[in-house]
């Protein structure tokens, strides 16, 4: 079980959080203008990286805020967390 440093509440146990998958997949502003392929890319296709991944988490049993995380999926080491809308810390 990880220890996650919620950008708002500080270090908490993983059981207070929920994972939300790959980060920085922006919802298309004009979905109707996308082809089926482009829409499928947004909807289903994922990098599913082995290694350093940027992903979304929410402090569901705490402040209910979504935030982003830099995590190495090969060993589960968390390198950083950052708020929604912020740029990922260079790493």
């Amino acid at each position, binding site marked *: *079980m990880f220890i996650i440093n919620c950008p708002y509440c500080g270090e908490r146990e993983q*059981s207070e959080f929920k994972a939300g998958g790959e980060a920085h997949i922006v919802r298309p502003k004009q979905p109707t203008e996308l082809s089926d392929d482009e829409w499928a890319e947004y*909807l289903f*296709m994922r990098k599913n990286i*082995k290694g350093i*991944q940027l992903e979304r988490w929410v402090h569901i049993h705490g402040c209910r805020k979504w935030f982003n995380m830099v995590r190495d*999926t090969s*060993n*589960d080491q968390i390198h950083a967390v950052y708020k929604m809308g912020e740029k990922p810390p260079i790493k």
Partner: protein
Amino acid sequence: MKNKYSIFSLIKNAFTNHENWQRAWRDPEPKKEYDAVIIGGGGHGLATAYYLAKKHQMNNIAVVEKGWIGGGNTGRNTTIIRSNYLWDASAGLYDHALKLWEGLSQELNYNVMFSQRGVMNLAHNLQDVRDLKRRTHANRLNGIDAVWLSTNQVKKFCPIINTSQDIRYPVLGGTLQKRAGTARHDAVAWGYARGADEMGVDIIQNCEVKGIKRVGNKIEGLETTKGFIKTKKVGVVAAGHSSVIADMAGLRLPLESKPLQALVSEPVKPIIDTVVMSNAVHAYVSQSDKGELVIGAGTDDYVSYSQKGSHEIVEGTLQAILELYPIFSRMRMLRQWGGIVDICPDASPIISKTSIEGLYFNCGWGTGGFKATPGSGDLFAHTIANNEPHKLNAAFNINRFVSGDLVDEHGAAAVAH
């Protein structure tokens, strides 16, 4: 066959103190070129190679495995085999596999210990009842031997289940597929490996793929830790690592790789002689030939390749086990482990050509791939050999995620264990 297995060969070899058994498979260095290369030496990959050689006369082929064969999900799963799926496409796929299981030990001359001890799926709320009845009706019409059981029939078939109606999520009934059961996971990989090797397939272990060479839209070969291997056809059966391989070819897949855990108890004398699954409370249990209770837990909600999951998942599963089997409270967990499962949004697999000529993917089996091993291998071999899907895996193409024609076992029936 160079050394056929039987009671007689055992007796014969006993006289020479078993010093004359030959290798089950060779340990060759890769050739310069193959007609096809399978990436991934798990059950599905080895079965694919076996059927390519057996049914499609492609003998100049290789299986490359970055570790040791059968070391991935093949050797880590809870070995449940069943075909009582809801949708026609799934039923067709999994029952094709089940039929192959029924003759597999003889086909391979290797005892995979396929044990048709039956699989029960329990219902714990009214919607479960609707969903499971819906499935049994569909199964019946698809010629699959699943039947609905009342709570009393459940109790009769597996007396140690707590069917009291006062518990938190009482058992309201269930389904039973008698032809379903379990098999010895390692034996499946080893049996297919031995069979494929016999027909000339090179099984190359400790050989990791580092890159995929393509010219234009055509596959040219693979960069591996044992050098470059030239080939025009590559079948990827890399389970949790599918996305990693896809990335080498510049593809993205609709997959997420998540930790799935399982555990076994200490071995005891026979106490439960069937397989019981409960999606609602997340408990899957059977007893191995060795006497261990084999228990499947759920997946974590985050992507991970660490082969470790969180303890809370295991705890939750054992809570459910004790809710249904209070008598197991004093049993002890002997071993717990994790695997990496690649999950599709619709919880159905992909057995498909790709946009790249000569590149084929077999992935997305999620938590339920073992049961499909022979069928998956057979159909993937067909797809690779003919560059066209078999009618049984046509529905499991990658394009369904674009067109929207999903095979949503997930939406229709919880988790596809």
